[in-house]
């Protein structure tokens, strides 16, 4: 059994999830069951970080993955992000790395910098 804290609402139910059947106990609503099963089947996270920015005003540009990527790939994604250098101008939403680490997610700028 895997123990988890449910994050779908502030109650924070302590869930127990069967690692083979993905059956969830300890939840107080159906959303908790879905969350618990997903966390074991295919846990995903949005990764946010910064990349080196060549600009007059800032040294770093904030970025994120534009979708949740597999949790197990977080550090692989970070390694890809570390290789990027961006030159201003850049606009929020600009794709800086497409299909990062084979996750189908893109790393995008989360801020616009003019110069």
């Amino acid at each position, binding site marked *: 059994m895997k123990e988890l804290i449910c*994050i779908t609402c502030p109650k924070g139910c302590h869930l127990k999830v069967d690692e083979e059947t993905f059956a969830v106990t300890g939840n107080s609503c159906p959303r908790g069951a879905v969350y618990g099963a997903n966390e074991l089947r295919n846990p995903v996270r949005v990764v*946010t970080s910064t990349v080196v920015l060549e600009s007059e005003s800032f040294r770093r540009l904030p970025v994120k993955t534009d979708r949740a990527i597999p949790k197990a790939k977080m550090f692989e994604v970070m390694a890809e992000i570390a290789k990027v250098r961006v030159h201003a101008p850049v606009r929020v939403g600009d794709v800086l790395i497409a299909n990062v680490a084979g996750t189908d997610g893109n790393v995008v700028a*989360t801020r616009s910098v003019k110069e």
Partner: protein
Amino acid sequence: MTKAELVIIGGGPAGLAAALSAWESGVKDILILERDRQAGGILNQCIHNGFGLHYFKEELTGPEYAGRFIEMLRGTDVRVRTDTMVLDLTADRILHTVSPEHGYEAIRAGAIVLAMGCRERTRGAISIPGARCSGVFTAGAAQRFLNIEGYMVGKRVVILGSGDIGLIMARRMTLEGAKVLACVELMPYSGGLNRNIVQCLNDFDIPLYLSHTVTDVRGKDRLEQVTVSKVDENRRPIPGTEMVFDCDTLLLSVGLLPENELSRQAGVEIDPRTNGPRVWENCETSIPGVFACGNVLHVHDLVDYVTAESMRAGEAAAKFIQAGGETGDGVELQNGDGVGYTVPQHFRRDVSDKLQIFFRVRRIYRDAFISVYDGERRIARFKREHMAPGEMENITIPAMFLKHITGGPLTVRIEED
């Protein structure tokens, strides 16, 4: 003297939202004064996501959330003056400002919105014993170094306090290659959101020590060790429970304090419970025409609530400019059992359609009621499955419920039965 209809002190999420709503309410001469080099406030360094679920119905990062408001203001004539510090504020709404571009300048404002935000409690505020070595940072300062400047403050980290900034920094430091050894919380519960406990600590197997605190800091030059001890129910360290962590960095996430030095200078009445101004239901302070919103009023945990509150403040400031001040009988609000404070602290009985009250509970409650009493008479009751001090609560009382109150203070309290 320079004049402006509405001056907003602070260009963070509160100031930006107040400006936008005042503009939409018809005020055309709006000036935002921002001390930093750019608008956006603390959101600029909060590069993680999770902002905007209420307001934009999508998950944004801090810079994206701020960027949307800055973008919306581009379509208006609202002026944002950055690199500008307000040195003094007087009760007759004169602001003494200084900036490299405009020098020293006094500005007379028709109305003012205070939106200066908050600051972090420091090592001194909680008198952590031990050496005066380097390596002890407030979590927010470390966050600025990491996310804005691009520097790491250390490699082996202990975090004191499980507030959201501390939790977020645990993940950020880990992703950037540091080893976070522990997150230590004085209280028996975390001050942060569950989501952050799970995704910032549990995801990286970082232990959370509840009912523990840092009892010693060692290091001749740079931090070398911290001692963590369990505390008893009176929050006093229990001898014999010490754990020693070899680390080079201690991050403090031990609370936020509204920054009301300017408000005090002007003579705005401050509520010792919130450390923010005492306000009416429209965010007006004890000085007519001076409004307050966001973290300068009380510390929020969701920027979406800051936005909503600031929209109300901006709208009220606009009404003040256009139609003059509100009058009418005031009714005091007070906090009863289990409630730490209320915002607003008082309201006018002829409140238009509803009264929204924000507060924090003093401990964790399950299946409890928020009750509002007029003397002995309960006028409203709200059920909550779960309440925690880390999560701001709010209730909305329809105006019709307030029609027949006696005029004495209303009390908000928590009832379990």
